[in-house]
């Protein structure tokens, strides 16, 4: 692939991501923010695709669009009364929110600047083709990272059992 094409693709996906994320945070109606988030997730998936990480791109869609976003919409639609407009009422909350936002931003910026991003050959010089990643990820998950992988599944199982208990309510 050519350098210019990659850059244009990257910037257009980045524009979609940032634009829709802004829309999601600034929209007055919570429904609109939820659906703007969909475009954000697709933009991020596109960026993964541009970087040659095919498995991550599809996982992004499966997990975020197919899982998280639908859960979000479901929760919203099941709520009795969805407030149409959100407004911060007291100025104290502005202070708290801006402190939290600044801390998050500083932490993220520190982590991003400290990471060596361009290590794969298809990112650094664009000469090599991106390799398929599915087998690599599968092998890594079942060898080096087996414990975290199994731990995540135990957490999910506990959540499932807990949800079933809550859903059954007062039967016993």
């Amino acid at each position, binding site marked *: 692939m050519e350098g210019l094409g990659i850059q244009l693709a990257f910037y257009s996906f980045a524009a979609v991501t940032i634009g829709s994320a802004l829309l999601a945070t600034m929209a007055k109606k919570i429904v609109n923010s939820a*659906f703007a988030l969909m475009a954000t997730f697709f933009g991020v998936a596109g960026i993964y695709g541009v970087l040659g990480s095919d498995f991550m791109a*599809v996982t992004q869609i499966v997990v975020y669009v*197919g899982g998280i976003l639908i859960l979000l919409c479901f929760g919203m639609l099941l709520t009795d009364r969805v407030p149409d407009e959100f407004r911060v009422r007291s100025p104290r909350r502005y202070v708290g929110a801006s402190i939290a936002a600044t801390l998050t931003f500083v932490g993220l910026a520190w982590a991003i600047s400290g990471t060596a991003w361009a290590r794969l050959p298809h990112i650094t010089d664009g000469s090599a083709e991106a390799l398929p990643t599915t087998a690599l990820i599968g092998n890594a998950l079942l060898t080096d990272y087996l414990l975290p992988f199994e731990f995540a599944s135990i957490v999910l199982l506990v959540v499932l059992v807990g949800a079933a208990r809550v859903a059954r309510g007062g039967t016993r």
Partner: protein
Amino acid sequence: MNLDELTLTGLFEELPFWVDIPPFAQMTVIGLVGAAAVVLLIVAPIGLMGTYAERRVSAFMQDRCGPNYVGIPFLPRKIYTNYKWTRLFGLGQSLADGIKLLSKEDFVPPKGEPFLFIAAPVVAFAGAIGLFAALPLSDGLIAADVNVGVFYLLAVGAIEIIGVLMAGWASNNKWSLIGAMREVAQVVSYEIPMAMAALCPVLIAGSLQMTDIVAVQRTGATFWGISIPDSIAGWGAGWMIFQAFPFNIIALVIFYICVLANLKRAPFDLPESESELVSGFLTEYSGMRWGLFVLGEYGAMFALSGISATLFLGGWSGPVYSLLTAIGLPSIVAGVAEFSYKAVGLFIFMMIIRWTLPRLRLDQVMVMCYKYLVPFAMACLLFCAAAALVAR
């Protein structure tokens, strides 16, 4: 030009000014033209033929005639009565329906959310045509032979749910909202056994790529560790349902049931059940917006039939393919012929099921999924893993 090496990119490279265009613009043009080609050449004819076939199948099953009058459009009645062949068994009915849909009032509920209401059918339709991107229609005839093919196909299905949720919310109508919620509950539940059943052929093939899954059903097929010779595997003996016998047959049945549920087709048509919810999330839709939903549904029906055929029934390889290539037809044509009879057969079978079985209750739908399909799919997955181990 050699038909075997025909690709969309190759067609564009014949243009004299093509090399002067920047590569990103080339990619965009190829993508747009490819998507338009899928819509015009595959989805639209399937929608037209599908609605016609649905009405004819339902009519035959209920001992009626069905649409059989409108043939070649815009002919005077006198010709229709005197020359009966101009009716073409009613094939023109779908075109007439299309003209009706286009000329209907474009209604948007004023108290809903107009933008979401307009965007919803587009999103749902995009999810449906996205299925065609990784579907191998013939030998080498695949839009994007991605490394994560099966995973991608399972992911794209989620987009359609978002469209339906949008439609249900934006209509500002209780029937729409209840229909959309039922749809989400049903589709999200049935994705679990569907993914598990789809993993069975993936385990046997050892790859998520659609072309690899077809290839393993032609050459190097195994039957519980015994290798099937390629000479008979190409004639259908290597199909996935015969590998890891009989567990892939069960997986195919589970996958097909889940496809029916994902498509909201009877007996799983609770989201749009007419007797309870008017039309569910489609209640407020009319004209071409409604038509887009239906076109997407028929497109997805065909695509998912094709995916079932590719995963379990050999895709574009099998007896018809071997026969046609043996008499000297190009392999791309033979592949399309082989693929279409299987995909169309599964497509028509969906209609037969729809007009045979009554609708399930919502609790029955959930019991069916979690108490029967999920355990059986898990068992199939285990036994297919065993078969894959034996074959190594």
